[in-house]
């Protein structure tokens, strides 16, 4: 939460423009400058009330607090691994809040912010990373599919689901999440080709956080990612991924177009992963601290906070209350995670089929017997 309280400084309004390792970044949709000034964009307007603005801030701050606690818990041996979203809160919260009831999201393994907006209990996500659960939420009830670890695979699922929506004649849209690295994957390209061919109601929301683990974007793509959409035959738009308002507006428009039958859109949310790829990664091995410092000046939360403060939409009491709520959330996540019971190993047989098959029942019995053969312990 350091970044939460840091003073905002005047920097160039276009992320990446000052970063020598990145190409010039034109065509960036922005509604909130890094200094917290509301700016207008000819194609994307956003009519938003003060309550909604404060709610967005609360989302961003709580999601970050959750992420920080999860990272700490991993370092304390309480999680097997954690994929941090630090720096990508606005892209995720903006996209998640753009979804309507009935819309379906297909996340990667980093979409904790989207999970939050869809009503997934953080502890269900924590159970996944603690390794005691395979993902316990109801994807259909929440409109949020289970996390997908295989890079890019969820794009095929999303396109297929969207084609199903199309055949059902339903008026809902599908939001497929992916990272910049996934755009180099075959599945993602196949998904986009199918989506284009069938005008499927799917929006590809790519968080370009600049690195595919350690490989910088310029090593993967000779053109800005959003321009690739043209090759598939649908619109591509680049949005400032650290501007929650712009992300909200652009994603809303894309989802609306999908629902109206206008087919897919590719959104490149231009952002930055301020933390490590996962807790197993050491980003100091492949990027400079100065780059991180530069992106801290474009912090998505500080930006909205500056806007809320300056325009008088929120006062210190509001921010303090959000901080306090964050600490309560963190404490709940901490105790809830540490107290999670280890699962029964035999439980893996329970959810394969709705009704147990004789073969599986026999395997289960063998498995239980096998575990009982070990000394000192019931499993």
């Amino acid at each position, binding site marked *: 939460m350091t970044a939460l309280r840091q003073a905002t400084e005047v920097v160039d309004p276009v992320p990446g423009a000052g970063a020598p390792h990145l190409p010039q970044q034109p065509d960036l949709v922005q509604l909130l400058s890094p200094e917290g000034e509301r700016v207008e964009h000819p194609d994307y307007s956003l009519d938003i009330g003060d309550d909604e603005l404060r709610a967005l801030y609360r989302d961003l701050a709580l999601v970050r607090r959750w992420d920080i*606690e999860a990272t700490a818990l991993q*370092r304390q041996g309480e999680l097997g691994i954690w994929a941090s979203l630090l720096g990508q809160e606005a892209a995720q919260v903006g996209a998640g809040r753009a979804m309507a009831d009935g819309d379906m999201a297909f996340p990667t393994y980093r979409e904790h912010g989207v999970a939050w907006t869809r009503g997934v209990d953080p502890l269900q996500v924590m159970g996944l990373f603690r390794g005691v659960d395979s993902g316990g939420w109801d994807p259909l009830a929440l409109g949020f599919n289970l996390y997908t670890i295989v890079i890019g695979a969820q794009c095929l699922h999303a396109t297929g689901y969207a084609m199903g929506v199309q055949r059902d004649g339903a008026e809902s849209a599908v939001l497929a999440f992916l990272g910049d690295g996934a755009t180099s994957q075959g599945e993602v390209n196949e998904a986009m080709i199918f989506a284009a061919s069938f005008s499927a109601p799917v929006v590809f929301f790519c968080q370009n956080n600049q690195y595919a683990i350690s490989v910088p974007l310029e090593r993967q793509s000779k053109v800005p990612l959003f321009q690739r959409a043209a090759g598939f035959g649908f619109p591509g738009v680049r949005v400032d991924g650290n501007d929650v308002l712009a992300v909200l507006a652009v994603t809303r428009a894309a989802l609306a177009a999908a629902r109206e039958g206008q087919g897919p859109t590719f959104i490149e949310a231009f952002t930055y992963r301020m933390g490590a790829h996962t807790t197993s990664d050491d980003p100091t091995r492949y990027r400079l601290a100065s780059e991180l410092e530069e992106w801290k000046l474009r912090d998505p939360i500080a930006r909205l906070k500056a806007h809320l403060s300056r325009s008088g939409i929120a006062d210190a009491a509001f921010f303090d209350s959000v901080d306090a709520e964050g600490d309560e959330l963190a404490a709940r996540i901490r105790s809830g995670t540490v107290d999670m019971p280890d699962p029964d190993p035999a439980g893996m047989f329970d959810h394969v089929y709705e009704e147990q098959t004789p073969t599986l029942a026999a395997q289960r019995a063998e498995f239980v017997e*096998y575990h009982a053969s070990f000394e000192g312990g019931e499993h």
Partner: protein
Amino acid sequence: MTSPSATLRQFKLPDVGEGLTEGEILQWLVAVGDTVTVNQPLCEVETAKAAVELPSPYAGTVVELLFEAGTMVDVGAPIITIDVSGGAVPPPAGPSAAEAEPAAGLIGGPAPGGRTSVLVGYGPRNTDAKRRPRRVPVAEGATDVPDAADGPAGRPDPEVAPLLPTAPDARTKPVRHGGLEVGRQAEAHALRGDAATSHGVAHGRGRLRPLAKPPVRKYAKDLGVDLAMVTGSGDGGVITRADVDAAASGTASALAPRPASGTESGEPGRAFGTESGSGAGGEERIPIKGVRKHTAAAMVASAFTAPHVTEFLAVDVTRMMKLRTRLAARPELAGVKVSPLLFVARALLLAARRHPMVNSSWDEAAQEIVIKEYVNLGIAAATPRGLVVPNIKDAGRLSLAELAAAIGELTETARAGKTSPADMSGGTITITNVGVFGVDTGTPILNPGESAILCFGAIRELPWVHRGGSGGGKPKIVPRQVTQLSLSFDHRIIDGELGSRFLADVGAILHDPGAALAF
């Protein structure tokens, strides 16, 4: 977390990556007596993957640091004891936001430089996995039943045949399982103290494949090594790359022990291959590649393209050897090796100047003979990699000292295996020195593209008809230092006459170095 007492908590080194087994405590960020809050950084730990700060899971007072900075600690070992009696046990609530911040800001942030390398993503385990102890299975009487632990739920799987030679079983079938099951069998027997372990498991010939990992199988195949003939030295009799190497190099110890006739030959499970006839007179198959392959191609091309003629000449080089001693003492030649080869090279260069046609090549395509105005003098060298023929560029322009230095450098480079392709290309004529092997002479094959090659034999003291007084004296049989020269040449270009004159000139200079003045 174990708790030594009601209010003491120990923090065990967690696996901060995936599958890490240890980490080095780089530095402690707290000291004994310090009050710490939840998520306050306690220490900096470097693992195989990253250097990270470990935040405290407890709020309380530091009682003890269990390892000094710089210590490598196993994952799971307690590293710090914290007394949490000052607060609730354990403190359920997180720290105040302000206190939590340092940890938060630092995690994933830039770390000081000078780290050792880390990996991104999954890394291999550095240590062997430990198996949990198993409950001892109840003996079922028959020893030929596989360990109850081997089949799921202790049920003998008919598909997993008993593999050990001591346990022939009517149900035995060729095992289709991979190394894992076999390894487990071996391990099970090792645990039971069964003497017949790895050998038997690995060599149940005709019943199961020898145990080796796929790359080793490929390696053995490439080297022509029959894995059934190799004794594995790895765990459970697994054949390692080193075992294959040893077998390939014909080390007797690497070959599978052959049963003494009569004692074990009656046991069908112990047939190691002697019965199949591949006994002591084995063969070694060496893949044709690298320098050998190149040499073979060059020699075949040369032998079947250029019709070779070889001529021989015995030369009394006693005077040359005397001159060598005198020259070696001269300051111009200090620091270089004045070898017989140097004289041969010099003689060849002088003779070639007189007979330029020997320094030529046959251009079949252009239907032209190309006479080189420079001599790139090749010296055939035996190296660890095989035969290479680097050449000295424009050797005819070099002084004796320069030539000596060039030969020295060339042979040194070749012996070090560092001869570059450029060093080996563009040769025009070659010397091969078989004398260094104590051999008198040979019929060398031309280096492709060249038209002559001079073979230089050993210099021996031989009984020789010698006339003293510069050849004008009475003939006497005396011991003289004699060498053999042979010259192979391309008869398309060089007739017997030219070849003979050239060889005679080389011989004349070596016999009487003073003759060089006439050239």
